[in-house]
């Protein structure tokens, strides 16, 4: 262990910064920095820009277009993109189904789907949760019955992020009801324009419609679009969920951006004639969170630097980072809304979601729209990807065998 500054990493960081400065359109960045979730057009447009540079699929193997970065470089890249306000790319494609396809998919599937993901042409959305299968995902009931070269899919998914923007949908279906629940699941890829698919947006508390239910009514999916073997879908899913937790769990860059944003805005905002941040309880609360964010960030760095070991939480570290990261994000977004003072209570429509509203002006400071959306989104973060209660079960079981 030593803490000598690493000049190669520093150079890489500067390269990324220069690239972002040159290539990230400023209106896109403004939308990316708002609390509203990035939508399809920005996500794909940004992916295209990255793809041109060869940077769109940072953690993919070189043979599928990855840039051969170290884990540390990927982390630096993510952080810089996030801090610059780059749109969030299509996680469903790049982060989730992409790795499943190149790891478990057939040569035809790789050839057919990976370029579209990498180059920002296809928007993928996830179909995992169901009304009665949330944290207990394996209880899912959407069925797929073989009919010649097709499966006939019937059922319903819920909590599909960006559902209304989807081109393709990867989903888990039950192909065997006679075995233990994990053993009868298959993993399918579905063109969302297939007849029988209905996407119904769900309104979130802050007013946005980025979540959706997806209904399947006798939908035909070619068997060729099944990943790997029939009834082995749970294995691929565990692989995918581990990626989700490890790479997206703590979201340390988001935590840092919140800190930066709170500091910036609370220096500008006044309580009477004093900057808001001069309120001692406000400043102290922020300081406590900054210290904890640094500890979380260091934990991520430890995992990046030497994988899992006893001293960094071992196999439980994904759950630890997910739980603590999301809870800290909740406290930080709370504070962000507070910074906006009276305007923190105002309703603002989602201008990422509805492009037609982008030129409208709203009451209050320019930064206010989106704060509440971010706060609500972070409330959901302790629920999705396995509720934090489930993460704590996992930690207790993994570390103590309870």
């Amino acid at each position, binding site marked *: 262990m030593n803490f000598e500054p690493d000049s190669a990493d520093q150079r890489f960081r500067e390269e990324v910064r220069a690239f972002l400065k040159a290539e990230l359109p400023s209106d896109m960045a403004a939308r990316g920095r708002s609390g509203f979730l990035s939508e399809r057009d920005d996500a794909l447009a940004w992916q295209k820009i990255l793809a041109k540079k060869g940077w769109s699929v940072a953690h993919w193997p070189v043979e599928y277009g990855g840039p051969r970065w170290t884990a540390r470089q990927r982390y630096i890249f993510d952080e810089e993109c996030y801090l610059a306000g780059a749109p969030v790319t299509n996680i469903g494609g790049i982060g989730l189904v992409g790795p499943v396809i190149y790891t478990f998919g057939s040569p035809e599937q790789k050839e057919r789907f990976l370029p579209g993901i990498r180059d920002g042409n296809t928007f993928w959305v996830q179909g995992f*949760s169901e009304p*009665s299968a*949330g*944290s*207990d995902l394996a*209880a899912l009931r959407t069925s797929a019955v073989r009919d010649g070269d097709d499966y006939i899919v019937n059922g319903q998914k*819920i*909590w599909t992020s960006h559902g209304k923007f989807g081109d393709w949908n990867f989903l888990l279906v039950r192909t065997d009801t006679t075995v233990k629940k994990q053993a009868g699941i298959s993993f399918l890829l579905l063109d969302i324009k297939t007849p029988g698919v209905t996407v119904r947006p*769900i*309104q*979130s*508390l*802050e*007013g946005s419609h980025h*979540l959706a239910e997806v209904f399947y009514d006798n939908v035909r999916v070619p068997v060729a679009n099944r990943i790997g073997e029939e009834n082995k879908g749970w294995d691929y899913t565990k692989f995918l969920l581990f990626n989700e937790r490890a790479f997206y769990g703590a979201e340390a860059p988001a935590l840092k951006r919140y800190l930066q944003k709170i500091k910036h805005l609370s220096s500008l*905002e*006044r*309580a*009477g*004639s004093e900057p*808001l941040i001069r*309120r*001692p*309880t*406000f400043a102290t609360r922020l300081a406590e969170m900054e210290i904890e964010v640094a500890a979380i960030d260091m934990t991520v760095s430890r995992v990046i630097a030497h994988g899992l070991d006893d001293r960094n939480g071992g196999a439980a570290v994904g759950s630890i980072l997910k739980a603590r990261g999301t809870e800290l994000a*909740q406290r930080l977004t*709370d504070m962000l*809304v*507070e910074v906006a*003072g*009276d*305007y*923190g*209570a*105002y*309703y*603002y*429509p989602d201008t990422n979601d509805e492009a037609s509203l982008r030129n409208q002006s*709203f*009451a*209050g*400071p320019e930064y206010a729209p989106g704060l*509440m959306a971010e*706060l*609500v989104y972070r*409330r*959901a973060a*302790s*629920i*999705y990807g396995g*509720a*934090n*209660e489930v993460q*704590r079960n996992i930690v207790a079981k993994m570390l103590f065998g309870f």
Partner: protein
Amino acid sequence: MELQLSGEQKLILESAQRFTAEEYTFEKRRQSVAQGVTVNRSNWNKLAELGWFGIGVPEEVGGFNGSTIENTLIAECLGKAQALEPYTMCAVLPARILAAVLDNEAAQQAIADLISGEKLFAAAFSEPISRGDMTAIKTTASRTTEGWTLSGRKTLVVGGDVADMVLVTAKAAGAAAPEGLCLFLVDAKTAGLTTDGDRLVDWTSGVDLVFEGCKLPADALLTSGEDALALLQAALDAASVVLCAEAVGAIEGAIEATAPYIKERKQYGVTLSSFQALQHRMADMAMELVLARSAVMVALQALANAEPIERSAKVAGCKAFVTRIGKWATSQGIQLHGGYGVTEEYRVGQFYKRLLVIDALFGRQEFQLERYTDWMLSQLEGRLHGN
């Protein structure tokens, strides 16, 4: 001191419970929200008919007597029922203000119109830099030969989108608060007065009011200076406690929405309520509810007995406490609902959003807690200097 509800108080509570249970359903609320309605005037008139707007207003000025205690009983029910109507901000608060300036003729008429529901009143006292301190304002009133010209922007004006009349604070041009603090009663149709904004995140009413050279008659000024400050502070304190009672109702509502849900909902083949971690979460929520209600009573006691500085401090302490634990308890209602909790399709999330709005009204936790702390320290002054 008598902590039991009196017979009359019990009647008010029971009638409020009955009325809200019958009139307010989640479906009706969603309809109003979809139609963009913030204040349903027919509902508003029903509240007036129940006599709720005159409660806490002395009989000699046209009210029905009673005290803030009764207002809190009603507000609790409304908070639990997720009423969109702004009882606290557009009935209790303006009535308190108007009842204190009855030497003004317009105010005499106004309070009658308020109690009957004839007119709807909004109170515009907050600005971006106020953050709870109502003397931190920039809106300016300039003397003219005919009266006053008013210019400035008010924030978080509940009822501002639908009000007939607005109570507005301003600083006399050239003077500093509190000396220059002025309180006006303004017709909402006054030229130069516009609104900015849509509504609040919990779908209740709340907008900016923008005054651009609004010309007011001389008698629009209700009071000014130290008097204005004292009466506004008293009114805001009372309204703040009533708002906290709304929060108590919201906490109770979140608990009552969540308990049956987790008893029903299954994961891993068993009901959620069989998990001890969730049982304990709900036990904690229930504890917060009991303490929140007690905190409101502590504040009511201060309203009744304490000198203004102590009163305001204790009210601030109540609001800091109730909003902190209320935000936590209602957020856990969401957590225990899982994904459904963050959607508009379930009612539990509305309670949480209500707490977010309550936190913003009258100044947030941080401000309230510092206010209480400052008072607590002031009580030790002798000791701090004596040694």
